[in-house]
């Protein structure tokens, strides 16, 4: 599904003249996804709320200059992601330009999968237990920023490769490469946890 089909359509003209009803509709349609993006990027409810508020303030402020070259939803995702990255930078100034971290360059060969325990057989209540959910969240936050941003937009929010590329200012090839790296890393991290659960449960071997 294309991202723009997932949301209702809006009158840019009404939004630009700050029509309250149209602005409210926009907020209703996007506040959930922007908050979730903040939570996934930063892992803290207060930070996610900051992302939410500053994103909508920016959106309404910048609407008069929105040219409609990308869809409205992609544009909102871009603003939200920038706000989240700004909070990350503020929080960890020592990391500086973390986006350009040395490892995981796009042209490096993919590392070989290490974890080879099949944990798909675990029951759903174990795969999604409270503890497992914390592992899922922590694993996302352990991803380098440049992999995390791509994973969140593509696999969590369901944007297309093209929309993700647009929102992050990347080429589509970069999006694909980073997405695969992100997915493989997450698989390794989850396999560590679930692999142990499988061994405990005696389902293995």
């Amino acid at each position, binding site marked *: 599904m294309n991202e723009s089909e997932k949301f209702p359509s809006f009158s840019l003209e009404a939004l630009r003249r700050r029509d*309250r009803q149209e*602005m*409210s509709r926009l*907020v209703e349609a996007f*506040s*959930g996804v922007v*908050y*979730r993006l903040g*939570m*996934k990027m930063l892992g803290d*409810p207060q930070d996610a*709320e900051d992302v*939410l*508020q500053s994103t*909508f*303030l920016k959106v*309404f402020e910048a609407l008069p200059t929105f040219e409609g070259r990308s869809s409205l939803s992609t544009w909102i995702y871009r603003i939200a992601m920038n706000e989240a990255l700004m909070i990350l930078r503020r929080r960890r100034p020592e990391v500086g330009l973390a986006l350009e971290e040395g490892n995981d360059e796009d042209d490096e060969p*993919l590392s*070989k*999968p290490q*974890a*080879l*325990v*099949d*944990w*798909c057989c675990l029951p759903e209540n174990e*795969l*999604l237990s409270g503890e*497992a*959910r914390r592992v*899922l969240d922590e694993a*996302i936050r352990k991803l380098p920023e440049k992999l995390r941003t791509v994973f969140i937009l593509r*696999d*969590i*929010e369901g944007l297309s490769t093209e929309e993700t590329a647009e929102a992050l200012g990347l080429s589509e090839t970069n999006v*694909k490469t980073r*997405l*695969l790296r992100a*997915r*493989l890393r*997450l*698989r390794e991290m*989850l*396999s560590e946890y*679930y692999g142990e659960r499988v061994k405990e449960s005696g389902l293995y071997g």
Partner: protein
Amino acid sequence: MDRQDCQHLLAALGEYIDGTLDEELCREIEKHMAECENCRVVVDTLRKTLYLYRVEAQEESLPQEVRHRLLARLELEG
């Protein structure tokens, strides 16, 4: 994951999982997986990884009080 076929599969895995890989390559991958248990596990656990993140994300909702504070900040209440 040592054979050349496995490396081959790894590189095409993203598109395979997304269903955007061309048919011929898909068939090659499936043939390889039928013979290579390790690759089958990697593909299955990778699919499951993505599934779990999707399920978890769908359950995340905006807390009411956060929504109210947002509307207040934007002067859109009532």
